[in-house]
């Protein structure tokens, strides 16, 4: 999944004088208070940290309250989603209008109907709402499915993402990974070709020919010709 990164940081944490007897605890508390919040300096949401105190000596700031600054070396796990990144999350709610996803258990995303490619059709099966691919019968998205989607925008305050399932490389992760080589043709140059999956999923809904589907056929045909 994109958007996650580990960073090394040199930090200085300023502590109130009353904390001078329990510095480690105060540092951990200070850092913990910035967890799961978007941090401008780090350029992302702090998910986890590991700190080492560099220097036992701390500089005391002059002022009304003599805060002292402790220098630290920290290892930070950051989450910084940007537009056009691919993220993965679990579907928690699904309706004809939208799909709601939770990423890493704390960030929420919504994919509205107009951002879901035409390949997916909304269905109700056995009282369960789902989106099923018209071209690939096994490609199904329902509540509980882990999906990969594209980031359109990211609200830094609420950590809320507007997502999109338009690109062909998005959808149910399980299905995508199984058919990854096929999909990889679209955005990366292919090394191998696989006919097997293609021949299995021959059923096509009438009247529904999404653009990507057409491309798929053409590219496949092209390659077959070149191989032959």
């Amino acid at each position, binding site marked *: 999944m994109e958007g996650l990164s580990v960073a090394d940081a040199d930090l200085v944490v300023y502590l109130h004088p009353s904390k001078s007897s329990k510095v480690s605890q105060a540092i951990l508390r200070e850092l913990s208070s910035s967890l799961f919040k978007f941090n401008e300096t780090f350029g992302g949401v702090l998910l986890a940290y590991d700190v080492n105190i560099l220097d036992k000596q701390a500089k005391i700031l002059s002022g009304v309250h003599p805060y002292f600054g402790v220098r630290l070396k920290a290892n930070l796990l950051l989450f910084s989603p940007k537009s056009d990144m691919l993220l993965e999350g679990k579907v928690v709610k699904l309706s004809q209008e*939208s799909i709601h996803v939770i990423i890493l258990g704390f960030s929420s995303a*919504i994919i*509205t109907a107009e951002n879901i490619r035409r390949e997916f059709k909304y269905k109700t099966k056995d009282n369960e709402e789902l989106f099923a691919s018209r071209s690939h019968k096994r490609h199904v998205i329902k509540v509980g499915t882990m999906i990969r989607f594209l980031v359109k925008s990211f609200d830094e305050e*609420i950590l*809320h993402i*507007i997502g999109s399932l338009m690109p062909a490389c998005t959808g149910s992760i399980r299905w995508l990974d199984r058919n990854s080589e096929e999909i990889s043709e679209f955005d990366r140059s292919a090394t191998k070709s696989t006919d097997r999956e293609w021949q299995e999923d021959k059923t096509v809904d009438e009247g529904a020919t999404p653009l990507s589907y057409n491309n798929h056929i053409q590219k496949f045909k092209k390659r077959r010709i070149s191989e032959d």
Partner: protein
Amino acid sequence: MGLELPKNPDMDQDNVVNFTDSEIVSHVKDALTSLLSGDSNSYNQLVGVMHHSKQLAPDEVALLETTLKALAGAVSCIDITLHDSLLSAIFSMSLWNYGPHVADALVELIVSLAISNGKYLDLCLGMLVSNFTPPPYFLDKLKLPRGLERKGQVLSRVHAAFKKIADYVPLAPLRLLTMVQQGMPTVYHKDRAILIYVENMLTLESGEIGELVGSTMLMAVVDRLIELDLEIGWDAILQDDFSKGIFEMELEDLEDIVDSAEPDIGEFRLSRKSLAGNSIAELLDNLLVLTFEHLESCERAGRLAKVFETLLRSFLLTVMTAYKSKFTQFVVFYACSLDPENCGMRFAIMLADLFVQDSHPQSTRMSSVAYLASYLSRAKFLSASFISSMLKRLVDWCLEYCNTHDVDINPNAHRVFYSGCQAIMYVLCFRMKVFMDVPRLKSQLLMPLEQILKHKLNPLKSISNIHSIFPVQSQSSIINSFIRPMFVFWSMVKPTYEDAYDDENDDGSSDDDSIQDFANENEDIMNDVGKSFDEQQLDLDEFDCALKKMSITPKNSFGYKFGGRFQEPTRMPSRIRPSTSPESL
């Protein structure tokens, strides 16, 4: 019909026409998007339906419900700037005005909005929080059966909505926390909205997202209680005739809360006589009842231990540091009484731990031991052995202090020590009967105690502060309520000693003597103070003189003799520190 529906030749105002949900949703979507192209007719009709909310005919109710449901499906088309009139209409709707079906639809819309876009989350949560309290016209009806029904209906939906939103937006409870705290009505609101608001906060604490928001909610409630608590001090000072009826208060009720095994909170009522119908007192009263009921429900659900940890934290942070907090401590006392073995003992041990540790600030330690003394003397649910073990801890600490400080009396330098001694004395006076019954305890405690009392540091001299707490207490007639039990107890103390003395005639040991004298002296002190109270008219003008008369300068009326050991008039500590003395108890 308010909404423009597609032209259907078969459609007739009288015919029932069934549109599918998706058709209605798409019409609403059209209405919303048409605004972009300048056509505001359908949109305005939508807004109109939202605004039309009072005295609705059944078909209007149905229309409202349908529109709300359709909007819930069309949230992706709602633009925060373009459709601001619609949004403001939605957010100003109050669930209290509608029946269950419309309320369901409205909540569904709010939840859909909240999870659709980060921009709406705060607004939606805010709308739900504002539904904690009913509209002004409804507040009076809350007590009626219809009002209660509506209240249950609204609040259950509001809290269910919080859970739903939290399911789809995991960080929502964090935003909710700040919103609830900031939205708390002040205690000065005439409409007493704070009562139902606090009820909601407590519901949040025990609700499905309680894990995330509970402790903050509880601490915020205690903060509010303290605020009111301290408020009462001021009001009582400004009363003109609070001296009347001071001793006619229903003090037994206050005691019942703390002492009895199964306190009946229904009887917990601050007497209005002494507070001249003070509405703040009534409010505090009601809030305390709410809190007590909540604690009871926590205990029934088996969650009390966890809630107690939060209470303790709150106690340490706010109650103990509050100058002259009088009633809020009872929240902790009550929780202790619900679970004496765990919470009850934990509280006492925590206070004792605080007292003996050098690293804590002096004022914290003194305050801590004062509350400990108050707690140990009042809590009937604590076993004698536990109380004696706590007391032994204090005695041991004081003895150790004596042994390491071979110096003369100096009230300023040894404040912690003196407050410790004072606490010991206080508890002994209340619980002496218990110790008299167990001779082993007597020797374990009283012998080291004698050493302490006879030490150069001379704690008894400083403990004479006890009588100095009364003038400070006179600032609040509520605080005076604690004098009364002391009166009762003090008069009981002497006979007990006499019995013991008679029984152990052969003993004639010196420790009995000194304690007998002590009891005598203090009893005189109490009685004298009692006299001075009845005699004097304490109104605002004479307040200062009264204070001077009763407090710092020792007078003959106090019978300050300490068994005749000291001939010269005793020197009082230079400052009265009420927070160190049991007055706050």
